[in-house]
């Protein structure tokens, strides 16, 4: 029941919370961008995405809506994927200094020798930084969680290792924090960006760390 209430809350809040789905300058209303990323997050991945700016009268701000698909590139398998959708706007902006709280809804999937899984989740990120005319830099503090995940063990895992594995929907299968930096610069309609940092499962846990213990992404955005 606790996880169910959390899920409902997130979906209801989503449209009114500022969000961002990618590393880039804010896109003004009416403009669009395609982007591509490559790096370690948490596997070696490539990402393609689309973003578009909208004007929203009742909050008197522009928002940016985006969608992106990421896939691991090592022996690419269509069953390993991460689909994110998000929106972005600025909460506080003063002379180039900016604070926003990005949110994504996330659909993730995987298939490996032990199981297949489809997972619904979200991430929330606090971004604080400076946007100049041609460059920007942000600090990020994020939280990523998988609300609910459908897991099914492979026949091999059940046959040789654990026949009583319980297939089904699992609640709260994953959560971790991120801390890192985002930066980029613009040349005409092209932006080059980086995002790097460290994922941490739980600062209070004695036994928990993610592998790899860092993430790093190089991105290219094209505005049109």
């Amino acid at each position: 029941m606790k996880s169910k209430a959390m899920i409902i809350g997130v979906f209801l809040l989503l449209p009114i919370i500022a969000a961002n789905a990618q590393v880039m300058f804010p896109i003004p209303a009416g403009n669009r961008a395609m982007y591509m990323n490559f790096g370690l997050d948490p596997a070696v991945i490539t990402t393609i995405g689309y973003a578009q700016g909208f004007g929203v009268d009742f909050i008197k701000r522009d928002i940016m809506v985006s969608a992106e698909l990421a896939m691991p590139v090592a022996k690419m398998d269509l069953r390993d994927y991460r689909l994110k959708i998000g929106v972005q706007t600025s909460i506080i902006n003063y002379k180039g200094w900016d604070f926003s709280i990005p949110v994504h809804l996330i659909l993730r999937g995987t298939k490996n020798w032990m199981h297949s899984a489809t997972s619904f989740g979200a991430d929330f990120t606090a971004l604080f930084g400076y946007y100049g005319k041609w460059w920007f830099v942000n600090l990020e503090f994020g939280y990523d969680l998988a609300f609910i995940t459908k897991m099914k063990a492979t026949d091999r895992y059940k046959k040789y290792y654990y026949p009583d594995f319980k297939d089904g929907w699992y609640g709260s299968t994953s959560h971790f924090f991120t801390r890192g930096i985002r930066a980029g610069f613009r040349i005409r309609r092209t932006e080059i960006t980086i995002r790097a940092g460290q994922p941490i499962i739980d600062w209070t846990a004695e036994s928990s760390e993610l592998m790899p213990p860092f993430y790093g992404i190089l991105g290219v955005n094209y505005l049109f």
Partner: protein
Amino acid sequence: MKLKKLWVLSIVAVFLTLAITSCDVLDPNEPGNLVPKTVDEGNPEHADHAVALNGSIFHVETYGNSTNPTIIFLHGGPGGDFRGHLRMKERYGGYSLQDEYYLVFWDQRGSGLSKRHNKDILTIDIYNEDLNQMIDKYSPGEPVILLGHSWGAMYATSYINTYPEKVKGAVISEAGALTGAIYEDILSEVFDFNLFAEWLNDWAWDQQILSPDDHVRMDYLAKLPAIESQPKYHEELKSDDPQPFWRYGAAASKYLQEDGQNSEGKFVFDFTTNLDQFTRKVLFMASGKNEAIGEDHQRMQMQLYPNAELAVIPDCGHDYWWTKTAEVVAAIHEYLDEIK
């Protein structure tokens, strides 16, 4: 208009989520869901094999006549279990180790179906004391024979180094490294750390769906790399007869290794400081195909014992206690006859 569409999509998403969550939602941390229950959690098939020792509860199975000399098996890992060693109790070519010996299989502290523990009591000193009490229980007043494979062979050496008088023979089967310095030398051979390796990316990708911040999830996830992360070991883990396991003890694996490291993460353990006191014959074993810790590596390590011989089992990899059990038992039988 487009913002209205976003609202509609969000509402649809809410209803979809409600539909999903109206199903029974399982707890990934619940014992028995992802990995078997341990004996202290009430594993129904192994409830009779729970043994309390040294402040923990171990999964132990014994075979043979308890009045015979005792053989204690030490499985690999750290973090593995003895399920993959159970073929060693069977009969091959008319002979079974049970004919002459009392066989004790046990899952080490925090591993397999034995009780889980946190970092503070997962150390090599406590492991040595676990084995000491296991020997006192199953072979009171009589030295035992240790049969250790992989990490188990390292563990056997650590114990012999500490309590040489309580061991009358040992099989050191494809030990990883008997000192931290040796381990540092071979580390790059042991694991395939290619950034584009499928096992590494599968493992990393899975952690955003199933994060290892609970014992059960850690244990389950820790087995994901096992199939492909050590290709130079040439194990037959993708075959139709892979070496099985019950549960990988992720905390035991992590903290036993950390106990052998210094503050910079360098392996500095040394299980050989007192080995010159152990003059009884030791049988080293190696698999013919292992490129990382096979014959050459074992020939080098056997020099650390005063009295050792080597048996190589051809045409097999590191899992040869499972895939070539008859040949392994024959070699051990011959060795045991020598030290009678």
